[in-house]
Each structure stands twice: as structure tokens, then as C-alpha cells.
């Protein structure tokens, strides 16, 4: 057994290393596995001008958008499921402070996959004929093309390699080998596409405790291992804890009342707490 490098890092130290303007990739999905502890810390640190890429947006992205930290969001859609829409994202987009670049979920996942695999580009039939193809084409990320083997139309997309990805895992060892149970949606591709990867772990386990056949993210691509028990709260982590529906509803209700409502939420629950642990104590109590 090779022990490997120790990549452990506190959330505070990790966020201190993220500059304004960073291109972040996030991997929560609506009300599950959002990197909420990370989003809180970024907001408290006052990061601005972020570019965020996320296949399906959720609470983490909405918090960042509500705080005015995001200049550009590339996503395949998003919501807080039946609790409501991403008011922070939608208000920033409609207000013009956030540029929203929409894809289909598969098309964006394929761009990340191409980035992960170092492919020069990747082709798809998704988005053909739809209005979704327009903005990415205008931005030069997507081009109309054709299959050289049969002449059929397709879209040719550039690979996407965000600067930093942050994904929430069940368990990780100090070297970074990490495991996820349940559906993994776009987590594997998001983690592998980024130039730098942080895994936020419910639990840090000893090297060797994760069966190598169950490792979903190998240490070789991990740059930071951040312990954060309950770090996805109030979203759910399969096998660990459920979402907190009352808290999510309070957040959506705040957003429904407009930017002032979200600002009040952030003041109380993010800026008004010194740490995520304090937030947890207040929110769960």
C-alpha cells in the first residue's frame, strides 16, 4: 500500500487560494449533494467575478449568484425541485448582472467529458434545431458541423476545463481517493474536467479503507481533501442525511420576495455566521 501525498486542507485555507475571476465547476444537483459549506465560505470571503459551470444548478450556485459573486453561469438548467426555482440565478440573469449560458444537460456534460479526456472537441446531436444552440454558438463554444462519415448535421463543441472543481463525496482518504454512493449524475465528468479538484468529504477515512474497486475519484486527480461533515446541508447526501425541506422552503420563499429577500437570507445565515459550523448549529437547532 502506497500511502501517497497528504492533500488535506481546511475549507478556509482552500477558499483563500481561490482568486476572484476563477472558473469554478460545481456538481450538486438541485437539492442533493451541493457544496454548501464551500459556497458559504466563498460568499463570506467576498469572492467576485466568478465563472461557474454546473450541469444542473442547485442551492450552492444560487447562493453564489444571490451574493453577486457570479459573472457567468454555464448550466444545463436547474431548480430546487418542487421547492421552487433558482431565484438568485434568475434574478441576477434577468437583472443583467449575470450572463446565463444554457445548454442541455447532456451537451454540457459532454463538454466536460471532452475536457476530462483531453479530446480536441466532441460532437453531439443534442441541441440541434433548438434555441439552446444559439448562445453557445455566438460565444464560439459550439459550431454547426457535419459528420464526415455520413454527412449528417451535428454540433461540434469545444472541451471545457474549468480551473477548479469542488464536489461533495461520502468519504475520502487523505490522499484523495474518494467514494460516492447512489446516482452520480455529472459528478465524475465535472471532477475530471477541472484543472484542479477539491473533494469535500462527509468523512475522512484511512488510506486503504475504501475498497479500490469502489473508488469513484482516484487520488491522482485530487488536489485538496476538505473534511466537512454535513457540508451539503440543507441539501441531501444519499446514505448520510436527508435535505431539510423547511430550510429550503424558507430560502425559496426569501428569494420569491426578490433580491432583498435573498440579501436578508444571506445576512442572517451566511454573513451573520462566522463559520459553517455556526450555521449548522443555528439552522439545525
Amino acid at each position, binding site marked *: 500500500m502506497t500511502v501517497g501525498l497528504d492533500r488535506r486542507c481546511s475549507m478556509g485555507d482552500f477558499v483563500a487560494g481561490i482568486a476572484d475571476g476563477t472558473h469554478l465547476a460545481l456538481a450538486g*444537483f*438541485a*437539492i*442533493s449533494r451541493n457544496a454548501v459549506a464551500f459556497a458559504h465560505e466563498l460568499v463570506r470571503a467576498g469572492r467576485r467575478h466568478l465563472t461557474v459551470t454546473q*450541469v*444542473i444548478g*442547485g442551492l450552492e450556485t444560487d447562493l453564489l449568484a444571490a451574493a453577486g459573486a457570479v459573472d457567468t453561469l454555464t*448550466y*444545463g*438548467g*436547474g*431548480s430546487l*425541485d*418542487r*421547492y421552487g*426555482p433558482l431565484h438568485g440565478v*434568475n434574478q441576477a*440573469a*434577468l437583472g443583467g448582472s449575470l450572463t446565463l449560458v*444554457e*445548454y*442541455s*444537460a*447532456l*451537451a454540457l*456534460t*459532454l463538454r466536460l*467529458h471532452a475536457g476530462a479526456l483531453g479530446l480536441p472537441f466532441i460532437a*453531439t*446531436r*443534442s*441541441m*440541434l*434545431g*433548438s*434555441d*439552446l444552440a444559439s448562445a453557445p454558438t455566438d460565444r464560439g463554444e459550439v459550431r454547426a458541423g457535419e459528420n464526415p462519415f455520413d454527412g*449528417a*448535421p*451535428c454540433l461540434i463543441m469545444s472541451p471545457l476545463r474549468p480551473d477548479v472543481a469542488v464536489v461533495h463525496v461520502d468519504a475520502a482518504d487523505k490522499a484523495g481517493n474518494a467514494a460516492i*454512493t*447512489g*446516482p*452520480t*449524475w*455529472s*459528478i*465524475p*465528468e465535472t471532477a475530471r474536467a477541472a484543472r484542479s479538484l477539491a473533494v469535500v468529504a462527509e468523512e475522512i477515512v484511512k488510506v486503504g479503507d475504501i475498497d479500490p474497486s469502489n473508488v469513484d475519484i482516484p487520488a491522482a486527480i485530487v488536489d485538496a481533501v476538505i473534511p466537512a461533515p454535513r457540508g451539503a446541508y440543507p441539501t*441531501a447526501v*444519499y446514505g448520510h442525511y*436527508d*435535505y431539510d*425541506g423547511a430550510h429550503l422552503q424558507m430560502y425559496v420563499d426569501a428569494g420569491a420576495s426578490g433580491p432583498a429577500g435573498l440579501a436578508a437570507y444571506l445576512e442572517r445565515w451566511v454573513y451573520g455566521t462566522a463559520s459553517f459550523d455556526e450555521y449548522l448549529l443555528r439552522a439545525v437547532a
Partner: protein
Amino acid sequence: MTPGVTWTRGEMLAVAGSLQVRDGDVTVVGLGLPQVCGFLARRTHAPSVRLLLEIGAFEPDPTESAMGIADPRMWEGSTAFGSLLEVLGVMLHGQRVSLGLLGALEVDQWGSLNTTEIVAEDGTRRRFRGSGGGNDISSSAERTVIIMTHQPRKFASTLAFLTSPGRRVDGRSRPELGLTGEGPTAIVTDRAVIALGASGATLESVHPGEDPDAVVAATPIPLAVPAGGPAETPSPTRFQLDLIRSRLDPKRWYTG
């Protein structure tokens, strides 16, 4: 109608939608009514249908109402977990999905869908959840069925945003656009079943108690009516209703 059996509009929609599922279909279902339709079909006439969730859950069989496809309750009973690339990539883009069941904010006469944003008459934009896997399902499933409540504002000749392509877009056919599959074959609402074909939309059946002329008036897209008038959609059975009420939508979020 079986004497003494009554149902809600949502129940009627769920039952009519479920009848669009064929036994053996490999189906990606969206949240809400599409999911209820899929589960109902599997427990009635289509026991070997495969239901897949884009989040990466194969053949879930939930026992509780879920708040969305990201709610772990929704994944209960799954026989395999995988990734979005596995479901929307290998299964769907890889041409292994025969049916997509989709909801919509707006639909046009060719079954193209808007799930992205609505523009009010005063120009105010209201944003919704966007595509998710919806565009992918519309682009690559062998056929799709649209499940929605019947409101005139949801039928539009020009969509505010074309999220997911139907049988034709701007006069171009799916092969011309580069899309595979037949595209949408039906719009099932809480009032009627509208068949979509190569020549457009036809009022195939109206639900029991509905007046065909009233349905046509409430459907502001070009809509053919068969010479003898539309058929009547089969009524829900007690068994179907019991399933919906006791098992598939016990909190009545979708069918109440």
C-alpha cells in the same frame, strides 16, 4: 364510466398518459406527472417497461412522494445507479431509449417544447428550470409523449424559447435537422389526447365528459379533428385509481 367511480382531472391525465407507454419501452421520465404515468404503466399494462432517471437511477420503484428527481426518495428500489452520461449518453444518445415522457410550459403544433422561460405580454420574462435532460430526450428518444395540463396559454404557434425540438422546427424535419427518432407522438392533457403526426396535430380523443368543441377552442394551435369526431378516452379503472392514490402519488401532489 364504471358507476360510482369518480376521479380528478390529474388522475385522468395520469391514466391517459400511462396508456401511451408500451410494454417493453425503455423510458426516460421527467419529474411529476410523467413519472406517475411511467410508474402506473409499469404496474398495469406494461410490466416490462424500463424506467430511467437522468440523474443516474435505473428502474426505481419509490414508495414515498419525492420532491424531485434529486430527492433520494425517488431512487428507492433502483437496481443500478450510474451517471447522467450513462442515462442520457449511453442509453439515450446511444439510441437505446424508445420513449421519453416530458412535461412542458409551452408546446407548439409540432410538439416542440419550452421549459426555459415565458415572456408575458408586457415583456416581463419569467425563467424556469431550463432543459435539464429534456432537450436531450426530445433530440434522441425514438418517440416522446408530452404530459401537461390543458391551458390555452400553453399552446403556442411560436414558443418564447424552443428548448426541445418536436417533429419539425422552422419547417425542417427531424432528419433535416440531424435528429433521430420520430419525435413527439402525442400530447396528453387533462382534457384530451392530441396525436402528433407527420402532418400535424389531431384531436384523437377527449376525456369522458369533455365537449370536443370546447377542447378545440382551448387549444390554440392548428388542430385537425377526425371526420367522425374524436374518440372518448378510456375511463380510469378502479385499479388504476387505487394505485395512484395508495402508491404512486399518495400525497396527491400531481393528481390531487
